């Protein structure tokens, strides 16, 4: 470990699905408290890169480190790491057979071995934070997309993560619900959470992120402070400019 502030270090990571190279020699560092937005056209490897951070996607080459844990080391107990790396999915992935409260309690009691009462208390506290307290007894199927995603964020936070990963958290939402989820994420960022966010919400990137990583065909094409990314367009690569033109047109 070189720098005490480094939370995540991705070093020369490559990954193949059969003959297809999904990640091509990717390297990046995320410091503690930093919010990094990853964007790029679909199929460029953004989600895959993010899922390598908690070992959901194994890699064939390179090294990944989260705090003191080397994710790519075969001897690493991934379950322990994953419990400290929160992840929010595009399709929420709340457990449909458990009510909201139990969704938040399950991993707290089974993975962190918290006593039930304490886990419930923590769950209610976080539900209050995402303004879902009144829905603790509801089942996910009875909630709107935005509500489900806020619960999903709370479920991750219940594990006291050191990092939060967001995989297109607003892409599956109806437009009028995007705001409420982004609001929760902004609040998290303000509180100093280290976050990697794969998203096409450039408004969020502009307002909240520190850095933007742009990917294309499995490579990290741009990795720069957000102001450079959005304001100094002439310094950007052609692919990035092309992408920004398309996405910012509307």
């Amino acid at each position: 470990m070189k720098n005490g502030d480094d939370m995540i270090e991705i070093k020369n990571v490559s990954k193949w699905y059969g003959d297809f190279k999904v990640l091509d020699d990717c390297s990046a560092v995320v410091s503690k408290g930093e919010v990094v937005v990853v964007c790029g056209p679909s199929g460029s490897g953004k989600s895959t890169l993010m899922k390598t951070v908690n070992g959901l996607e194994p890699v064939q080459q390179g090294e990944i480190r989260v705090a003191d844990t080397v994710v790519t080391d075969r001897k690493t107990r991934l379950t322990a790491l994953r419990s400290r790396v929160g992840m929010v999915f595009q399709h929420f992935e709340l457990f449909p057979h458990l009510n909201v409260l139990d969704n938040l309690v399950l991993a707290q009691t089974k993975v962190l071995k918290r006593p039930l009462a304490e886990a419930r208390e923590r769950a209610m506290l976080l539900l209050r934070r995402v303004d879902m307290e009144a829905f603790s007894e509801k089942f996910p199927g009875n909630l709107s997309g935005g509500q489900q995603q806020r619960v999903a964020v709370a479920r991750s936070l219940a594990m006291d993560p050191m990092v939060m990963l967001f995989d297109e958290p607003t892409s599956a939402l109806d437009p009028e619900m995007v705001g409420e989820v982004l609001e929760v994420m902004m609040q998290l960022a303000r509180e100093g959470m280290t976050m990697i966010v794969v998203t096409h919400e450039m408004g969020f990137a502009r307002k909240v992120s520190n850095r933007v990583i742009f990917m294309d065909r499995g490579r990290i094409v741009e990795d720069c402070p957000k102001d450079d990314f959005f304001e100094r367009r002439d310094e950007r690569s052609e692919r990035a400019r092309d992408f920004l033109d398309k996405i910012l047109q509307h």
Partner: protein
Amino acid sequence: MNYSWDWLIFLQPSITGEGAYGYLLLRGLLWTLAISSLSWVLAVAIAAAVGIARTLDFVVLRFLAATYVNIFRNIPLLVQLFLWYFVVPELLPTAWGTAIKRMDPLLNQYFTVVVGLTLYTAAKASEHIRSGIESVSAGQKQAGRSLGLTTAQSYRYVILPQAMRIVIPPMTSDFLNVFKNSSVALTIGLLELAGATYQLSEFSAQPFEFFAAATLIYMMITYTVILLMRAVERCTRIAGSLGAAS
């Protein structure tokens, strides 16, 4: 057609002197229930283990489970029963084979049918369980893992509770098939419902009454199973989800 119906035949004593015809038919029914219920309980346990094994990352376990399924699913039940009854005792060490042959013949037949029916039913049902597990979305599995749940915890708390609900309808037909397939027992001489019906219709010379009764009884059993499984489906339905029992 010149057939004289006699529905009171069930009350008359059998020509074998073992009791009334109705009583003998009832005895057949009890054998059917005894074979089917034990086979079903054992089959569900084996099917769950095999079905789960086929979805794990363990190559050896997966291979063994697949081999079992492919063998027992692809040989006709009747052939399997003959193998268990006539062939296997000869292949076992002599002492074991002799012990089996000296068993009470009725118990010997009963356990042979249970073994054959269980392994055949479990092979088919395990495929339903496997496809149920596979139909739980990849996102759910990732969500479980991303929270730090171990594989065993993921199965127990996330995957199986959802898969179980998915497999209720296909498992209902497996359950029905156990009752219907239990009739193969008659081929090795165990007079369960079908066997008893066949024999008693010969003895009494009133085949229509006996086959009518057997048909009704089989339909009553299977309809009871259907109602039972529907109730299970209703009770386990997840709030806010679409289900067949809604």
